[in-house]
């Protein structure tokens, strides 16, 4: 058993445009059971051998799906997430970026009343190397092992997974939680999943400037952490008031600085790498 993505996962794809189709194929190639696509109006057809349904309800009824990955464009993405939540799926991964924040506030309010785990939006998704992935992460960077990896970034996640894999640190599960201000699975909760996962022996946490997720994560680990952990924070050199690509990555009012996050992790006894390339060595030291 792994976290979020398991051998039981049966995934539908909401939004079967170019990107959705490409990644559906990639996920299937990796052994993930992708069972249906959803495209309003195209029900009854099939795309790349994938049966298409008009609604998530129809897809779930026919295929017993328990997870969804969403590629629907920003303007309709919140509606797609709500449709998935309405079917009480176990896991919903929203890849879409640029969703209006007020849409996500409403989604978060509904989400709090469900038992669904929403990862994202604006995220690369989840991979349990060797077991499956619900996401767009490039499999070449990942290898199976026992390091649990949580990150707010996309390519930086791949870069660090690559560094870990090269140094022999395979991963149990990698969760790309997304770079938006309002996300479904905040960092402390993602870290908690891995902290409580028997397949995970050590944690790597990659944060960035903005918000207080990293500080809250450090506080959680200080109280409940049971595994060796290493952190990295991107944006050390970012000036206040400038938004660094991710809508969430900004320093305002003296809050959300890299320094405050680094301090929080160090106070919790978690070493913070100055650069990504230091992570494997710090992990080795923590594990010895």
């Amino acid at each position, binding site marked *: 058993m792994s976290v979020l993505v398991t051998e039981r996962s049966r995934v539908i794809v909401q939004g079967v445009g170019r990107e959705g189709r490409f990644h559906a194929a990639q996920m299937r190639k990796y052994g993930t059971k992708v069972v249906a696509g959803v495209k309003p109006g195209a029900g009854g057809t099939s795309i790349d051998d994938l049966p298409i349904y008009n609604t998530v309800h129809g897809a779930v009824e026919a295929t017993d799906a328990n997870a969804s990955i969403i590629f629907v464009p920003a303007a309709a993405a919140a509606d797609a997430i709500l449709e998935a939540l309405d079917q009480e799926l176990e896991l919903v991964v929203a890849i879409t970026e640029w*969703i209006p924040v*007020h849409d996500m*506030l409403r989604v978060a309010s509904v989400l709090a009343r469900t038992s669904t785990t929403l990862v994202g939006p604006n995220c690369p998704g989840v991979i349990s190397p060797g077991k499956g992935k619900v996401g767009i992460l490039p499999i070449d960077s990942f290898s199976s092992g026992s390091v649990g990896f949580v990150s707010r970034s996309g390519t930086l996640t791949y870069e660090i997974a690559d560094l870990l894999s090269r140094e022999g640190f395979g991963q149990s599960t990698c969760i790309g939680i997304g770079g938006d201000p309002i996300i479904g699975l905040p960092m402390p909760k993602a870290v908690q999943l891995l902290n409580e996962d028997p397949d995970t022996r050590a944690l790597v946490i*990659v944060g960035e400037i903005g918000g207080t997720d990293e500080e809250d994560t450090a506080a959680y680990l200080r109280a409940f952490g049971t595994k060796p952990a290493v952190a990295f924070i*991107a944006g*050390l050199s970012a000036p206040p008031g*400038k*938004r*660094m690509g991710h809508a969430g*990555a900004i320093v305002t009012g003296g809050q959300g600085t890299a320094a405050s996050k680094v301090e929080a992790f160090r106070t919790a006894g978690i070493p913070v790498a100055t650069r990504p390339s230091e992570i494997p060595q710090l992990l080795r030291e923590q594990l010895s």
Partner: protein
Amino acid sequence: MPDGADTIEAPPVKLHEFQAKQLLHDAGIPIPKGGVAYSPEEAAAVATSLGGTVVVKAQVHVGGRGKAGGIKAARNAHEAREHAASLLGRELKGLRVEKVLVEQAANIARELYLGVTLDRARRRPVVMLSTVGGIDIEEVAVSSPEKIARGWPDPLLGLQPFEARGLAFGAGVPVEQREAVVDVLRRLYGIFTAKDCTLAEINPLFVVADGTVLAGDAKIDVDDNALYRQPVLAAMKEVSAIDLNEEKAREIGFSYVRLDGNVGIIGNGAGLVMATLDAVKLAGGDAANFLDVGGGAKEEVVKAALEIVLSDDRVRSVLINIFGGITRGDEVAKGILDVLAEMKPAVPLVVRLSGTRATEGRALLEGKPLTSRATMDEAAAEAVRLAKAAPAVAARRSA
């Protein structure tokens, strides 16, 4: 976790005070009588029509306008003209004043603070109310947070009357103004949601000598992800000359932020680009910009990115850091080669390709007029070294 100041998000699209006040007025919140003026003559005309003492306020996107001398009281039209003349065309904290708001001065008895923004950690809007208005509310949030009453309404329900009342009691709003403040607070919350705001703030809300309330100043920031459904607000977006590249980049579909250094940066993925800026800093240099080309960067995207970075005269070297996931290293390399052939940049390029088909990509770049490095750290060090070695005049684009 501290509440309050940490939840104040940055302004994606800032509205001017006069635009924000128009939204308040449309929503039924009382504002002072006034008008916008683009010349001293227009300012005098507005002052004449208002009569009595007026306030002339520079309309620029900076905080602390009062302290910076951007707000001046005038007893008559003559003084209003003089104040407008001294403000218009002048720079306030680096931004040129192109218009002023001329408003009837209020007879102020006291000032309140009202604000609505996002609380990321709680994943809800946060509504704030304080009787300590008119001054830097972020300072109050830090020094005496108990003076700000806060509530977190369910976005599906909106700010309910009981919640607004609770805030008014919590903040100690005098009984005479309670009803009016509750009303303004609920209308302000309505603007926050209807207009896709990340911040909607009235600071101060004047309590006038006759007991009525009036929005003294207003700040509204709009979520740029929602501009597609806010056409009126989208039209209010102003782009200063310094932000032109940021706007151009946005139109192409990637994000660019101008910074203060001289090492141009191009990368894929916000987190990776941030880490690249940090690597440059650790190598003893400073980045000239943040530029994220996003996922699946193809030839024309790489080219557009290079054009923007090279158009910056301060740039002494360019660092291209690509981690190929879905993006293929050889495709990126081909894009860079095309750019080299077409543009012949006058500043040195350092390229780091890793991930999918990076070996093939690096092979394509061999023998070309650029430096290739295997890791982010090595590439950052080389880009910083080249930037320091470059003569100051060399940074010209050879068209």
